[in-house]
Structures are given as C-alpha cells and as structure tokens.
C-alpha cells in the first residue's frame, strides 16, 4: 500500500500509467459479444443429454485450511451451472469433494467452510502413533451425507490416501465414504493413522496431493484442478504440526508439477498468506475460491464448448 500513499513523482508516474492502462481495459470491456455467445451456447449445452457431453472432472487438491477455498469454487460452479461429472480429492479436497458429490448444496458447503474449527475435526487422544484422533472427520462427514457408500453418491467420487506400511497409493472409491475421507485427510505425526480394510492409511497429500491422474483413470475428458498447494516459502514452522505439514507440502508441490500437466485448466485461489493450520480463516479462503473460480468461469465454458461444436447445431 505504500505505493498509493507515496508522493514521489516516479511513484505517481507508475500509478498514472497503471490507472491509464486499467481505464482502457474498463472502456474495452463495455461491449461483450463473446459473453452473449457463450451464454447462448451454454444454454444449448445444458440441454444436451449427459452422454453427449464431455465428462468434466473437478480435482480438489490438499492444502489443509487453504483447501477451504474449494467451497468457494464449488459455489461458483453451482451458480454458473457448470455440470461436474467426476470429483477427485485429496485430504481437505476429499472432505469437501465428498459433500459436493453427495449433493450437499453449495451454500451449505460454504457455510461449513466458513465456520470450520479444528475441534470439529480432531480430538485430543494420546497414543504411541499420534496425539489426536481424526474420528471426528468421519462423524462430520456422516452428519452431512449419512452412511452413504461411494456408489450411492450423485457424482462419481474418489479420494486418495497412502498406506504407510508399504507406501502404496490407495485410490478409495468403494465402500463407505466417511471413513475413506477421514483416511485421506489424516496428516502424519500428530494425527493417528486410520485402520481401514486391513490397511493403515494416512493423508493422500504424502503421495498425490493433486490427483489429476485419478480423474483421468475415471474417464474424464476435461480435468479442472483446484490447486491450493501450500506456498512452502511463507509457511510458519513454529510447531510440530506445521513442520510436519511443511515436509508433506514440500514433497506435495514437487509431485504436483507432473499432475498439473494433466489439467486442462487450473484454478489457483489467491490464498498465499494463509497457512495450512489456519482454519479460522475459512471465510477468506472461501472468498478467494469464489474470486478465482469466477475469473475462470468463462474460460471453463469455452474449454467445454470447444469439445462439442458438432453437437450444438
């Protein structure tokens, strides 16, 4: 903000140039044939039978509290009437993705994200493998979607966890949803691993923080990734949880690079100063998600429409 309060001529010159450029953009934006055409075609697109539409996958990455931005993105998808055919998530992405897949209204998901606390997700329970139990994640998901199984969800959904006994990446897409989500969102160190179908599972972010490849496996034609990966350069490292999550996200970022190449479009909410543990900043994350998704909505529609020209006439 110092830029805008300074009186130095050079700063005014720069600001003047910026404002002039922006003013030109404002004038240019007044007539929008493209928007008119997209709206018109989108209406036609929504009338196409599902089988004739490309399969659109939403990949919700891991990122702790930062992942609450997913709720904002989902709200925009709902408001813009962008149908989603496949949802894949890791960690917090699994948590929010499971709710969307179960047809929980976007407004409810937003409300949930804005009021999230650690107390709703974990409870203090000392054991040799961790200080906190994530049983409450399971209860939390159950509260919203009941004891639904994957095959009962409205939108096909999968989430990713890792078996810490053998390092295997586990794609969870069968059986009950809530325990799978819990496993996908259980960070190592402070949280206790989850026994699930004879496996010992932990956070999917360890092995695949942005599982675009899973979306591909599930038959996606268009992959849209919501990337909330931690900005490792600004993370706080003043307690054990933050240090451990930092280790996970350094690795996660490295692994995400390849996965992002599979994406047709990446939505990156501007949440750079929010750390993985700041669940109390859910409202900010949601807004960032809405802003980022809204800015990309037109582009998303273009990418989708480009796949169906022959069917729209």
């Amino acid at each position, binding site marked *: *903000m110092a830029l*805008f309060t300074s009186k130095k001529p050079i700063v*005014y010159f720069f*600001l*003047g140039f*910026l*404002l*002039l450029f*922006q*003013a030109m*953009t*404002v*004038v240019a934006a007044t007539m929008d*044939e*493209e928007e*008119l*055409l997209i*709206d*018109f075609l989108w*209406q*036609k697109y929504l009338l196409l039978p599902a089988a004739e539409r490309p399969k659109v996958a939403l990949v919700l990455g891991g990122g702790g509290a930062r992942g609450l931005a997913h709720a904002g993105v989902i*709200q*925009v998808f709902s*408001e*813009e*009437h962008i149908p989603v055919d496949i949802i894949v998530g890791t960690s917090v992405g699994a948590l929010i993705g499971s709710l969307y897949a179960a047809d929980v209204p976007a407004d409810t998901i937003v409300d949930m994200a804005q009021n999230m606390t650690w107390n709703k997700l974990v409870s203090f329970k000392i054991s040799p493998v961790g200080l906190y139990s994530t049983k409450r994640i399971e209860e939390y998901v159950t509260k919203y979607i009941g004891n639904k199984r994957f095959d009962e969800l409205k939108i096909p959904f999968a989430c990713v966890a890792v078996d810490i006994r053998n390092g295997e990446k586990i794609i969870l897409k069968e059986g009950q949803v809530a325990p799978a989500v819990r496993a996908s969102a259980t960070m190592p160190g402070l949280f206790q691993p989850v026994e699930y179908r004879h496996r010992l599972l932990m956070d999917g972010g360890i092995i695949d923080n942005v599982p675009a490849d899973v979306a591909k496996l599930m038959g996606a034609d268009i992959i849209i990734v919501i990337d909330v990966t931690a900005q490792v350069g600004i993370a706080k490292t003043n307690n054990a949880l933050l240090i451990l999550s930092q280790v996970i996200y350094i690795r996660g970022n490295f692994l995400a690079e390849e996965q992002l190449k599979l994406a047709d479009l990446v939505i990156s909410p501007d949440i750079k100063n929010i750390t993985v543990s700041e669940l109390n900043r859910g409202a900010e994350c949601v*807004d960032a998600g*809405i*802003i980022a*998704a*809204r*800015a990309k909505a037109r582009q998303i529609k*273009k990418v989708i429409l*480009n796949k169906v*020209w*022959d069917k729209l*006439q």
Partner: protein
Amino acid sequence: MNKNTWLCLIFLLLAMPVHISVAADRELKALLVQAQEAEQKKDFTAAIEYYQKALDQDYQPGKINLALGRLYLAVGNDTEAEKHLLKALGQKLHKGDQLSAHELLGTVNYHQQNFVQAMGHFKDCLELKRNYEPAYLGLAKIYKDVKMYPEALQELEKISKSKKLKSEYNLTIGLLYRDWGLYQKALKALLQVIGKEPTNIEAHLALADIYYRKKEYSQALGELQYIASLQPQGKIFRYIALCLFYLQEEEKAIATLLEAIKIEPNEYLNYAIGGLVYSTAADWQNAKNQFTRSLDMNPQSALVLIGRGWCERQLQQNQNAIADFQKVLELKNESWMRDVAQSNITILTSTVP
C-alpha cells in the same frame, strides 16, 4: 450660483457613486438569492443563469465559480464544471470551499475516467481535511473501476461506520463485490440500498446484473421491468428480451425487442438477439434475415457473422456460411470467436463435397 447651490451639487456628485454601488449590491444580492432558490428547487439551468449574471459583477468570483462548477456537474456538463472549478481554485476561497472544489473536481475527473487527476483531487481533499469521508468514497470508486479491489475495499472500510454515506457505501461496496465476483455479498449490500432507497436505479440495475449472471432470469426480469418502468432504455429492453428468451418465452422476447427497436432503431444488437431467438426456434430464414439486418448496421460483428453462418448452414447454403465464418477470421480480433469460426469452417469443409 450661490454657495448653497454649489454645496448641494458637490453633495449630489459625491452621493451618486454610493447610490449606484448600493443599487448594484442590491441587484447582486437579489441574483444570488434567486440563484440559491433555483438551485434548491433543482432548477439548475435557471440557477446557472443567475450565477453567470452574478459572475459578470466580479463579486466573490471564487465562490460563484464554485457554485457554477457544482451546478454544471449536476446537469451533466462536465467540461464546463471542470472549467469553473479550476477557475475557482485559482481565486480566493475559504478552506471549506477549497475542499468542495477538490471533491467536485475529483468527481468530474472520475466521470471522465481521468483517474489519475481524480485521485489527485481526492488526495488533496484529505490533505485539507483528514478523514474526509467523501474523499475515501471517491478513491474507493476509482480503485473499483480499475479493478484494484482490495485497495477499494480498504478505502471503503474507512467509511464503513459513516451514517451520512451509509447508502453510498452500501452501493459502492455492492458494486465492488459484484465486479469482484462475490455475488452473495454484493446482493446483501445492494438489498440494503434498496431497503433505504426503493427507487435507486443503480442498485436495481446491479441486482438485475447479478441475477442475470447467476442465471436467475425470473428475478433479473423483475428488476429489469421495474427499471424499464422508470427509465425505458433500449439496453434494458434487450436484457428483458434475453431473460424472456432464456425463460423460453420467445414470443414475448420478440415483442420486447420491438420495444427496444422503437427506442434505438439503429442498434445492431436488437436484431442480433432477434436472430438468436429465431434460430433457437429453428426458424432459420427469419433468423438469417435478422442477422442480415444486424450486419447492415454493424458489418464487423463476429457474433452476428457466426449466427448468420449457422443459419446458412441449416439452410444448406454452405458456401455462404463458409464465407461468413471466413469474415470472422479476417476481423482483427484474437478472441475465442475466431476459434468458433474456425471450428465451423473445419466442420463445413469436411462435409462440403
């Protein structure tokens, strides 16, 4: 002439200028009173005339130029407003009047999208009077318009508790949230404006815009019809037609477009939208006619060329269709419309023997 006669003559000669001066002063005061009364009655043109006459008498020209600047701004003559306000600032003015002059100049420049100058004047206001709320509002509007939304929000936060500017604050923050894409927050703020000022057109227009973007066409239609009842404009009727079209009320949409044509007979979009409506009903010939009329008014419209190309394709006039799509490619336009035209050419050339 005796001594007394001389004395009377001298007295009369001395008293004449005083008499003339008193008469001029009375006339000036009468003019200023008339000007103020006219301004209060919102008869701005009359007020301008009175102030112009007063200005000729060269009495407190700074104050009168300031008043003229304010009045020209009220009647939408920004050029004259700026001229008088700049004159006023160069003349003798009290601090309070200087503040008003800078605020009004900020507003004039903002209207003209001279954002750098506008910002300078609002900052001058803040130097003359710390925490001057209208200046923060002015700065917020500039930041909003140039899409520097966090900065705009920061300025608005400084007046969030202002009672005097409550409605302006809500309107600006509503518009800011709308432009930023935060529709729920925008709706909340704009509905508060409507709650206080039910006929605030700008707020109704912004609400209509948000509902339209959210594809809540019934609600958008309600807002637009209300606006049209107060201010019938071609653009509003076009949006009403679009809402009706998306609500699958094609006949009403066409009827509404006719209303738009009555107001703006040469607006190409009236016919372009008509073309889209007819093409949805698969009435290809009528659609093509509409697009052709639209192109007569704006031959550079990519939207209309694409629309006509589609109709021609349906009417088995593939060569014409290819020619129209080709014209889109020739437009100096790097937009997605080119991709649309190219895709259609590819489809057509693969089907044309």
